[in-house]
């Protein structure tokens, strides 16, 4: 394996991309989109004193959304596209090893995803002008965003090496990415609603004079969806990983100030069991009404599990592609040609 070979192959890929007009149009459309989103984000978070943090979190999430939407098209035919154009063999017959080729392609795919982040940088800077974002939030969220770009690129390059036809590998990449982003949401929603159980709500009875009776409980039972049993499905969702990993800042009332915190709160709240609710008017503070900050402290983080699952999927696909691309080829998938 050689760094010079990897760099040459990555540059070869990127040079071809940089010479297509479509690529610049895509980045231009993305920049326009960000102009609109930044403006809306400022309006959304104009209520708080941490406007910048809110705007920043929205832009990071939009960059992740764009990477998830566009990256499969750009990386999902990295290897089989070259095979169809008969340019893969031209590289394979040189002194570049299979590892050089795989890593060079991956590097180019990551750089392509990174270009979206680059375009978004000015907007992130504008968001910060609004104030309120702390350094740790910036660091962690950008790091996770970068890792997600790498994961999506790896899935795309991996599937392009395993599936013979570019059309199918691009579609398969979309399906895998959609399974993580939308599929997890669907399983969470349907699963929670399907696994219902009986919940009991406790409250104090009132007597005929309208006085609360603090010696007795009045109970009331009903069916609830059990999201606390399926919340872990969301762990593998890239947006949840991003939100859950980023440290949350709270305002004076204990509410998160940005979108990361709001998504995280939703996922963490789903961990709580809904089967017993108590409304104790005699306790003075309405029982166990907890603030978001308290909810987050009382529940478990899951982002590393989700990230681990994603890395496992991406790594497995990449390893499969690596062995398929090895030369001299022993087994060829049906319908593939070498040159």
């Amino acid at each position, binding site marked *: 394996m*050689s760094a*010079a*070979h990897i760099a*040459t*192959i990555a540059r*070869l890929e990127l*040079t*071809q991309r940089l*010479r*297509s007009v479509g690529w610049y149009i895509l980045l231009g459309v993305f920049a326009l989109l960000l102009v609109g989103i930044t403006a809306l984000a400022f309006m959304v978070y104009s209520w708080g004193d941490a406007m910048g943090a809110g705007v920043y979190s929205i832009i990071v999430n939009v960059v992740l959304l764009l990477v998830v939407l566009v990256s499969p098209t750009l990386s999902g035919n990295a290897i089989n596209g*070259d095979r169809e*154009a*008969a*340019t*893969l*063999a*031209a*590289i*394979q*017959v*040189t*002194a*570049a*090893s299979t590892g050089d080729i795989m890593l060079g392609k991956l590097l180019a795919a990551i750089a392509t995803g990174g270009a979206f982040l680059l375009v978004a940088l000015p907007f992130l800077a504008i968001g910060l002008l609004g104030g309120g974002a702390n350094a740790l939030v910036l660091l962690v969220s950008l790091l996770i965003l970068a890792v997600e770009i790498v994961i999506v690129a790896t899935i795309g390059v991996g599937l392009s090496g395993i599936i013979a036809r570019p059309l199918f590998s691009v579609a398969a990449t979309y399906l895998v990415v959609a399974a993580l982003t939308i599929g997890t949401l669907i399983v969470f929603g349907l699963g929670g609603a399907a696994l219902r159980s009986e919940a009991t709500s406790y409250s104090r009875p009132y007597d005929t004079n309208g006085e609360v009776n603090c010696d007795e409980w009045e109970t009331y039972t009903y069916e609830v969806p059990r999201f606390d049993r399926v919340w872990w499905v969301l762990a593998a969702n890239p947006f949840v990983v991003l939100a859950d990993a980023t440290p949350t800042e709270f305002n004076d009332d204990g509410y998160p100030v940005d979108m990361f915190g709001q998504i995280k709160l939703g996922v963490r709240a789903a961990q709580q069991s809904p089967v017993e609710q108590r409304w104790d008017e005699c306790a003075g503070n309405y029982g166990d009404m907890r603030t978001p900050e308290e909810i987050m402290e009382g529940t478990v983080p899951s982002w590393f599990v989700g990230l681990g699952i994603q890395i496992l999927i991406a790594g497995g696909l990449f390893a499969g592609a690596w062995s398929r691309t090895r*030369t*001299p*080829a*022993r087994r*060829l998938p*049906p319908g593939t040609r*070498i*040159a």
Partner: protein
Amino acid sequence: MSGIIAEGVTRSFGEVHAVRHASFHARAGRVTGLVGPNGAGKTTLLLMLASLLAPDTGSIRIGDIDPVAEPLAARRLLGWMPDALGAWPSLTARETITTTARLYDMSTPDAAARATELLALVGLQELADAPAKVLSRGQKQKLGLARALVHDPQVLLLDEPASGLDPQARVHLRLLLRDFASQGRTVLISSHILSELEEVVDDAVFLVAGSVVDAAPAQSATRAWRVRLAGATDERFSADAWQVASTLGIPVESVGADRGAVLVGFPGEDAAAAALRLLVEARLAVAEFAPAQSALEHTFLNLRSATASPPAHPSSETEAGA
């Protein structure tokens, strides 16, 4: 350098047996032609020699290196030119060469110098900075040749290199290959334009249905010679045919016609020479006396008709080597 040695090389794709037990030796310092009909397994064989495809059984040596065990070492020795060049469409011809050179560990200045040198060698100087997608088929072939020569290989594998080339470029290619061989390197070239191959090759390997076949029986088969008397026309053909046949003492029905000339079959060159003497001594005005087909073409066409049954010649079956 011992050139290219293949012993008992077999490769199948599922049910299709592309190459069966092929053995041959392409010697260093010589140009060897790989001849066979479409689908004979020429490209599959070249892919195995180029270290891109592993044989199911059998062994290959490029120089002293086994390309299956040490593909990276073999690739530094061999230059491979596929039948259709996969060119990176938006890269210029010059960039195509420099990128390839960089992948053979050349420094950037060396790669640039090599690109200029090779583009001049194949005659693409004027198009050096044009993107590959505007090149014609012939120009792409030239670029493919330049790319195969980037790292100054000892062994050159060419799959149909002449297709799409204009006559001048073909002559140029021929000189280039002869020069290459004269430096003690090995050239293996596949083609089915046999008349052209004949002008450049020293040896030929015949591949039919995936097997290397012995050319000796086919070469000794009766071969047609074209005899044209001075001023021959189609109208005069029957008179000429009668004159030639009666001089040679053969029935007039046994001779054929070819654009006014007479076709006569001879079992070998000696018989042809004897016949020519007879014709000249009989004072016939012989203007042309030559084989109607090139030697390769003759062998090739006779092979095809002779290989209805699988060949079992010693040269194609080396059990001990497998």
